[in-house]
């Protein structure tokens, strides 16, 4: 009975496909690692930040606005309370001075965080497994607003009161 057989195969394929889709949705979307991005083709550099904001795995790394690599991991180092960010940088960009600055920046006012690199003046370049020493943390909007308020309050004469709030 070939008709019977093909029907069974069709049913099986459909159910398999359906469950594969369900599996993809449940395992790959929430907190999944699958990014459909090839990060193996770069060299690895780390940077330590006081605060990375909500920098995510997979976020781009740019220089002068051009993407040169991406973030491959964001971890917390409990010895010095810093965020350790691993970057994968494309091999073609192998002349980045090792005294460059790595900054966590924001795309637009509300956009996602990314890592921007400002080149330094050193003659030696970043290599695989090296570390960027100069880092600048993410701008956290609330802190910025607080600072703004403080400055404003200081100008209008209430700075002592404002300062006393700060531990």
């Amino acid at each position, binding site marked *: 009975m070939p008709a019977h057989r093909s*029907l*069974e195969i*069709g*049913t099986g*394929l*459909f*159910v398999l*496909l*359906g*469950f594969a*889709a*369900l599996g*993809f*949705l*449940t395992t*790959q*979307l*929430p*907190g*999944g*690692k*699958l*990014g*459909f*991005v090839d990060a193996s083709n770069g060299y690895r550099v780390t940077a330590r930040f006081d605060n990375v904001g*909500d920098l*995510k*795995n*997979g*976020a*781009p790394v740019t220089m002068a606005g051009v*993407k040169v690599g*991406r*973030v491959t991991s964001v971890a917390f180092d409990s010895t010095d309370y810093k965020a350790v960010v691993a970057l994968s940088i494309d091999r073609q960009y192998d002349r980045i001075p090792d005294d460059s600055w790595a900054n966590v920046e924001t*795309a*637009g*006012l*509300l*956009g*996602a965080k*990314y890592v921007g690199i400002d080149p330094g003046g050193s003659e030696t370049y970043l290599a695989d497994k090296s570390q960027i020493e100069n880092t600048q943390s993410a701008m956290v909007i609330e802190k910025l607003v607080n600072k703004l308020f403080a400055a404003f309050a200081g100008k209008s004469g209430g700075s002592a009161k404002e300062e006393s709030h700060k531990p």
Partner: protein
Amino acid sequence: MNGAFAASLARFGSVALFLLRVLRACGPALARPRLIAHQVYNCGARSLIIIMLCGLFVGMVLGLQGYDLLARFGSESALGVAATLGLLKELGPVVTALLFAGRAGTALTSEIGLMRATDQLTAMQMMAVDPMRRVIAPRFIGGLIAMPLLAAVFNVIGIFGAQLVGVTLLGVDQGTFWSQMQNAVELSDVNEGIVKSLAFGVICSLLAVYEGYNAVPTAEGVGLATTRTVVASSVMTLVIDYMLTAAFLKA
């Protein structure tokens, strides 16, 4: 007006009673997996192509519209989140249910209606075979199984459709698209969609078999029943969608 209200109330009641009869027949029907598999094929595999095609285009439209909207706030990087949540929680289950009603629901209704019109259901009863168990319950269960699977396929294709437009065409960073999404989407969002599509599976399959079973046994009657299946399934899908959404937001 009063009569119309009473009529629609009676219809609700009769559908609810029919559901009880179907559920009672489901137990024995589960012992015949081959019959159910056949119906999973009829409802699911045969709707697969149309579901995939529509999923692709719905995802692509989400990519375009989402990008346009988010770009106004400078947050295109959230495109992956927006498109995925939109698909998972709303468009996936709802559009799948609407397509299911139009493709599989009508097929079920007209098939059962024709069986009624040509005395096949009565003939089964005369052969001491309960059509509720042999015909209705397997189709109901088949539709119930097929719906969440179809919705899942729809969602996956839709997400890749949104990526196709957002990343390949509009230049959103691929890593951002996925990483933002994977960090924002939670398992509860996925589950919400699955619960919804299960609920739609119940209502769409139930209405399809109900209308077929109770069709006036003429060509015209079956045609009318088919139309009623599409209309009632679509309306009920959207009504239940609102109720479930409200319930999930409260929880």
